[in-house]
């Protein structure tokens, strides 16, 4: 496979440039290479420290307090680990985590399956494949918030196109297809929209994987009279696997954080059936104004994303080395 890849995930990636040869460096007038390097890099680091890291530490501090952002004048009390303890015992939080798990599991499963099949078909290079591939890619470039909003229209039970199409196909009256109001259908409504939107993403990465497989391997398999089926299972799939896993990693992180599309499509409802973790977090932080409590939850989520991603990257590197 191409060394394409995964450099970003691999902290020991391609070494970051050897220094300029000594004689050349000495010739440089004015600012030294070392000075220039820091001059170029430090603004980015400073910005990230100010806008990302400082707030993160502030959130860590707040997570140990009872601070409420809507009452800035109240005395802030240190409550130790109380917020964390309450979160771990909070029934609503566990339900939100289950909702998130359902959403992440099914979106990833469907997107990987459909995305890989699409890529595998496109790799046949039929006439006009480039044009149709571009059409397929469009949904993933759109704003998730705007997508969530207009799918709310498509899902409307009476007037929506989706309900109409389903009732046309199945004969169930369109008024009974309340994707967003039915408690058992709502969790699937967000899975459907996310799959519609992000399958092209997985497809594109899988396509790169399929195209990275050198032709001679297939030629050798032909010589050995390996069946198509056999070729698929022992060449195509294993060689595309690192790419598939990369796509799963990216989608997994993104969907674990999912907020915008779901917020506009269902707002977490009906009740809290589609309340994924980020929606719970928003409700706690910006509706109930439990700033300390929600900061603790935010830290837990961040650690979870980070931890899972790290474990996954290790697995990914193992696959890559095989």
């Amino acid at each position, binding site marked *: 496979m191409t060394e394409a890849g995964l450099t970003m*995930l691999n902290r020991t990636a391609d070494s970051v440039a050897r220094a300029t040869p000594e004689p050349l460096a000495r010739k440089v007038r004015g600012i030294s290479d070392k000075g220039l390097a820091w001059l170029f890099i430090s603004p980015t680091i400073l910005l990230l420290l100010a806008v990302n890291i400082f707030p993160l530490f502030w959130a860590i501090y707040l997570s140990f307090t009872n601070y409420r952002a809507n009452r800035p004048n109240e005395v802030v009390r240190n409550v130790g680990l109380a917020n964390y303890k309450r979160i771990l015992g909070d029934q609503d939080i566990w339900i939100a985590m289950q909702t998130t798990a359902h959403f992440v599991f099914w979106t990833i499963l469907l997107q990987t399956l459909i995305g890989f099949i699409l890529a595998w078909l496109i790799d046949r290079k039929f006439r006009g494949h*480039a044009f149709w591939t571009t059409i397929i890619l469009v949904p993933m470039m759109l704003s998730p918030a705007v997508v969530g909003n207009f799918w709310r229209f498509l899902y409307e039970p009476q007037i929506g196109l989706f309900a109409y199409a389903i009732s046309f196909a199945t004969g169930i009256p369109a008024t009974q297809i309340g994707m967003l109001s039915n408690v058992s259908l709502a969790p699937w409504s967000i899975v459907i929209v996310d799959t519609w939107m992000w399958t092209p993403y997985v497809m594109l990465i899988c396509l790169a994987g399929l*195209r990275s497989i050198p032709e001679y391997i297939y030629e050798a398999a032909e010589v050995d009279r390996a069946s198509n089926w056999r070729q698929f299972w022992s060449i195509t799939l294993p060689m595309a696997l690192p790419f598939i896993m990369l796509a799963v990693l*990216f989608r997994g992180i993104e969907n674990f954080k999912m907020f915008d599309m779901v917020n506009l499509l269902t707002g977490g409802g009906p009740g809290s059936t589609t309340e994924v973790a980020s929606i719970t977090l928003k409700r706690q932080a910006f509706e109930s104004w439990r700033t300390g409590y929600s900061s603790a939850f935010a830290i837990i989520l961040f650690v979870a994303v980070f931890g899972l991603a790290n474990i996954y990257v290790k697995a990914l590197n193992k696959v890559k080395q095989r």
Partner: protein
Amino acid sequence: MSLTSAHSVVAPSAISKRVAGTIIVLYALISIVPLLWIFATSFKTPPDSIAYPPKILFQPSLEGYCNLFSTRTRQTPEYINALGPATDICDETVRKRNMVIAGPSNFMPRFVNSLIIAFGSTFCAVFLGTLSAYGFSRFKVPLADDLLFFILSTRMMPPIAVAIPIYLMYREIGLSDTALGMILLYTAVNVSLAVWLLKGFIDEIPREYEEAAMIDGYTRLQAFWRTVLPQATAGIAATAIFCLIFAWNEYAFAALLTSGTAQTAPPFIPTIIGEGGQDWPAVAAGTTIFLVPILVFTILLRKQLLRGITFGAVRK
């Protein structure tokens, strides 16, 4: 990557090609229907937009676009008849519903906010990103891998988790609901993408070019300016478009940190309300106008798309 340069799997048969083509075309058509439907809805009248069964054929109308750009008040027919002749097509359309145009809506200012914030943050992110990427690509930076990983990890945080302290911080220093605050925030989010993508692009430019320029007497800075930047233009442009798309589409921060003067289009569009519920043609019109730039960019970016969405991890 190039969508046209696939390797040919050892001679796929004509039939398998045809079957694959049919399935792909079907999928593409079905997946594009929701977008076509929104586009069509933007040209419907409000009654047509909520008709059952959904109307595929309809008399096109500009009412959605008129409603999107204006606020209207209901008046008695006598009052409307007493007015002079309608001045433009929108005037005429709304009068048929016993309304008169009261003034411009908030859509234009929100759209302009989106433009200012998206372009401002993209410029800053690409500027900082290019410098950093060059630094990481060409110099021995201590702990380079750790710094690069740190830059990337800032992107893994859930936006709402970041928004809580940012909300408090901005409230303290007066950046709440300002374009400057949003530009700073989007720059910070985008700079990680910019550094990772641009480092890949700059790594691909042979360092011999700069070395030759420096032997000719250029300083390092001049060599960067005269040889590296011109070579990296295509990569910088692709990176800029990715940053632009992110900032243009972003919703979570915008919804939580802006409410009025600096609000962007994504949190505004869902709030467009007509009489008796959401004014779907106006929402569809706003959505259409909002999505057109993205469609153009997607077509422009076709070949770099893969690289952009994987932070440069997959290059071909």
